[in-house]
């Protein structure tokens, strides 16, 4: 008892009684970056049908037109090839050709493209052989080209996972002192994925020379944008990462080219990444395996058909006297030649060597793979003898 009392009497008062306590204000807070310049405009940028089109270079307009005609024909031909069983699947970009092509054409040769599985047209616009672009979708080897040759990463099927690759490549290029820009393409659905977030965050923190190009075509397979995000626009997401967001009419090839060219130039001069959202529409279904009538109304599709990227560009070119019937015919014939060549080459059965199954798993085959390769070789020899 004594000792307890003794102990309690030795308890020290804390320095300064509670009644003397005065809260210290926290350190002053202010935003680290002014958000205003990062916010997208309230309206998507349009050039065609506005006064701004007067500044557009006629040669660029004609080139975009020829490429769009070719791209549309590519889409219809590839879709036809799925019906003939020559392609396992084809995710069409009919109605989205402007975004695919104008974005790819904004890159310099030394730049890199990181396409999703839907972005075959962007790869072809960059110079890739149309057949090589389709090997994945045909069921032949996954990537039918050497990515280093055209600086096009493999078409990426898992959503948004190619975006961090674009950031890493652009970052590495900058570390090496090369003024290379990476263009990373993704759909509206892909913006919900974690890799989209991580890629944008890394790019902004590292100030990597990357342009993120979201083609918002309204639906992720069947799920409309309203069920995908509550953001004011996908371009608005940029401000959260500290990079500028830009909105563009994705069916206006000239506007897409302009916005992308500016974003690429900004990245190249060390200004960091940009997020561009192109508002467009997928006229066809998600793929040939999809029934789009289950989730969208015919009227909606027709509204967008009237805002077709080819129609609005053609109107401009015709009004300016840059395009006549002969010019249209020449573009159509060039596209037809491409389609005939594609048809003919896709009709030949590809020859695959089963032994290649073991060729590129590791730099050197493991003992286990050598054993399995020997097993397959024996099976093939037995088949040959049978």
């Amino acid at each position: 008892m004594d000792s307890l009392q003794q102990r309690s009497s030795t308890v020290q008062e804390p320095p300064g009684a509670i009644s003397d306590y005065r809260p210290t204000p926290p350190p002053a807070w202010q935003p680290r970056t002014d958000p205003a310049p990062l916010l997208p405009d309230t309206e998507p940028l349009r050039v065609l049908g506005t006064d701004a089109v007067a500044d557009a270079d006629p040669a660029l307009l004609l080139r975009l037109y020829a490429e769009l005609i070719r791209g549309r024909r590519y889409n219809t031909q590839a879709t036809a090839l799925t019906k003939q069983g020559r392609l396992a699947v084809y995710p069409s970009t009919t109605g989205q050709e402007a975004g695919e092509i104008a974005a790819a054409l904004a890159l310099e040769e030394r730049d890199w493209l990181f396409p999703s599985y839907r972005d075959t047209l962007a790869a072809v616009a960059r110079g890739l052989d149309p057949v090589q672009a389709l090997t994945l979708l045909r069921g032949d080897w996954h990537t039918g080209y050497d990515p280093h040759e055209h600086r096009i990463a493999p078409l990426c099927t898992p959503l948004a996972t190619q975006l961090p690759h674009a950031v890493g490549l652009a970052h590495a290029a900058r570390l090496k002192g090369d003024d290379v820009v990476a263009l990373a393409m993704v759909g509206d659905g892909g913006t919900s994925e974690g890799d989209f977030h991580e890629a944008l965050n890394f790019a902004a923190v590292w100030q990597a020379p990357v342009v993120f190009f979201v083609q918002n075509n309204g639906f992720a397979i069947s799920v409309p944008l309203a069920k995908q995000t509550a953001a004011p626009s996908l371009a608005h997401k940029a401000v959260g990462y500290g990079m500028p967001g830009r909105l563009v009419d994705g069916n206006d090839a000239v506007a897409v080219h302009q916005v992308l060219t500016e974003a690429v130039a900004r990245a190249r001069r060390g200004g960091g990444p940009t997020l561009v959202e192109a508002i467009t529409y997928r006229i066809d279904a998600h793929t040939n395996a999809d029934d789009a009538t289950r989730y969208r109304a015919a009227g909606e599709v027709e509204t967008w058909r009237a805002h077709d990227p080819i129609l609005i560009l053609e109107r401009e070119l015709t009004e300016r006297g840059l395009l006549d019937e002969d010019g249209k015919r020449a573009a159509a014939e060039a596209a037809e030649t491409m389609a005939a060549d594609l048809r003919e080459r896709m009709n030949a059965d590809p020859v695959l060597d089963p032994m290649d199954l073991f060729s590129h798993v590791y730099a050197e085959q493991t003992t286990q793979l050598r054993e399995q390769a020997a097993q397959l070789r024996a099976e093939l020899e037995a088949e040959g003898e049978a």
Partner: protein
Amino acid sequence: MAQALQRAMRDAMAEDPTVHVMGEDVGTLGGVFRVTDGLAKEFGEDRCTDTPLAEAGILGAAVGMAMYGLRPVVEMQFDAFAYPAFEQLISHVAKMRNRTRGAMPMPIVIRVPYGGGIGGVEHHSDSSEAYYMATPGLHVVTPATVEDAYGLLRAAIASDDPVVFLEPKRLYWSKSDWSPEAPAPVEPIGKAVVRRRGTGATLITYGPSVPVCLEAAEAAQAEGWDLEVVDLRSLVPFDDETVSASVRRTGRAVVVHESTGFGGPGAEIAARVTERCFHHLEAPVLRVAGFDIPYPPPMLERHHLPGVDRVLDAVARLQWEAGS
């Protein structure tokens, strides 16, 4: 061991300017286990980079860096923190060479401190090797000695293929005569090593269970059991030759690891040994593994982790004397 790993990265970075170390806390702090200590200071923040806290982003960016000719060495900090990066690892890192028919190799090392025994709280003690082993395209390597920590990490960084480099956390503080200044052998990936010669049975093990097995082998001597201990070092590729040769000599085998038993590495190893050595076996191949439970709280982990007694019990169950 932590110092040997640090030295391996340092030597590799000094020799090859394309080697880049990256991860959460690897720079200024030197890693939570100090394995990357001093690298940022010596090579600069561009070569040893503190990244945002996002494992998929870290590994995804490493993929792009590898595409452009760099050799990233990525730290995942803790075993269970690597799971967000699984999609990048499985869909891209492991497959990129195959998808591009050899045009785009992925010379990435993914360093994962793994396993229990250090009193870590939930999500800090997983043994995730079976997930990695099940993915073609990845090498899976784990050192058990200080010498191997250096040699295998050097080999992993030099490899043109992706290597999941599993670092046994509880061996980070293990010591040996190895000196960072002495020349150290760089071990080729894929070779197991016999750590102790014996005639009565083979203990097949790796990583944190190697010291446990060596201790069990010493203890078994008192019982008159002469045990051989094989340290796999590399789970993928698997050294069938060394393992089979040992089991054929001894006629009995126990696989020991702290990962779960069901669908675990031991299931694969026991099956391989049985397929190759059936006529040499005097007893079924047994497994001593962690229980098939989520990693337990630290206060109970000693009951979960296979210890010397559990290994010795298994050896006894090999029906030591025929007919007994």
